[in-house]
């Protein structure tokens, strides 16, 4: 196993950053798999630094009012809403 293999605490920390409340068994399973997968990703160390051609163009359109979803349509898939707004959990 590589030096960079993750441990359980690290997986739990990443899960926290990603806002996924993993179960204990998942943390264990992922810890083992991530060691193997990240070791395979180490192969990227052999990649030479490569000139990246910046072939990018901005795509703009006039900022004009146009047809869009109604408030009702925009809210139709929200699990909870109130007074025409998304209703989320308490902040604090």
């Amino acid at each position, binding site marked *: 196993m590589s030096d960079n293999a993750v441990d359980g605490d690290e997986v739990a920390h*990443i899960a926290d950053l990603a806002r996924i409340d993993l179960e204990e068994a998942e943390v264990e399973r992922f810890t083992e798999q991530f060691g193997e997968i990240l070791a395979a*990703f180490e192969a990227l160390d052999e990649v030479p630094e490569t000139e990246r051609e910046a072939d990018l163009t901005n795509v703009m359109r006039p900022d004009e009012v146009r047809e869009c979803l109604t408030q009702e349509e925009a809210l139709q898939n*929200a699990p909870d809403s109130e007074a025409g707004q998304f209703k989320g959990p308490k902040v604090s």
Partner: protein
Amino acid sequence: MGDYNAYIATDTIEGTDDGPLAGRTVAVKDNISTKDVQTTCGSAMLDGYVPPYDATVVERLKDAGATIPGKTNMDEFGMGTTTETSAYGAVENPVAEGHVPGGSSGGSAAVVAAGDADMALGSDTGGSIRCPAAFCGVVGIKPTYGLVSRYGLVAYANSLEQIGPIAPSVEDAAELLEVIAGPDERDGTTRDATDHGSDYDFAAAADGDVDGLSIGVPTELLDGADEAVVETFWDAIDDLQAQGASYHEVTLPSVEHAVEAYYVIAMSEASSNLARFDGVRYGKSGGEGNWNESFAQAREEGFGEEVKRRVLLGTYALSAGYHDKYYKKAQDARAWVKQDFDEALSDADVLASPTMPVPPMKRGESLDDPLTMYLADANTTPVNLANLPAISVPAGETDDGLPVGLQLVGPAFGEKTIIRAGSALA
């Protein structure tokens, strides 16, 4: 209709009366938004989600007179190579019972292979159209990045994915591509093929004329492939040679690193894209607790294991201290792959390889071993990194009767070339 679980829903959407696809059925992968018809991405997170608008490709299908017979099953959010990670159950391969149909557009390939739809749309982020096409013995096209609008495609990895056709023949696939291709003001990454040396007469290019065609065969994509697959591949090359094509070996050293680069980039983009599924705007509500607890609960319950795996690995690759080690290196690899393809295509019209290095796996075989499943994408992922078009056509079968696909890769906006070459075989 077979019992191979290829449809998540069979709500019929009727097109206009007239048009080039009038009287034809085109099944649509369930990560493509259909107005008023449930779109789940194969995820419990989106169970019951009903888009208030159509994807651009769906509008174009309806305008072309196609009937959509249903939404097809898929690996959850497009994450998988076997169509076994769907929250709605695995799909059976209708032409090779007991084996997977390939993924992630496995439902789309299966309904075409079984004859339950005339054609279908899939999406291809790292091979998700070509892999199931190969495993089910049908034709799939991954278009040049920007040829087809992604508006209304639920995002997994924006810089890699394209919507494309799956059909029984190259000509049918080309005809469907003709309908969905073209710029869209709602997707700023679309480009007009006519600005890049092509027109949109894709179906007419399916004339089977390969006389004088120069085929490059990247040796790296044959190394390590299953013997029966390699044998079937060379038989197909012989067939093309007999019809007037010639082949030479080419080398693409960068592709050795493509599959790792692909997964780092795709997982990184996924970790960002899937942040929207929080149980507030849509998705399962996470219930009580503060904002973070509620989100984390909703995402634990709503996402399947493969999705969690990729979101976490993507979060890791982008996190402080690891960005340069994984993400930046993956971008270097991507640029290198692009250069390699450009060079190889400067003295070949198309590049040919087996689509998948292995025949269709047995069902259940690869689920416990994610790394092995990721490595199976070695031949398809380089094409997405380079944003090039590619087609998978049936090359024949192994002695055990399992379908083998041949992949042809062309230059950017070289759809007509790969269609012409592919049509000599299917």
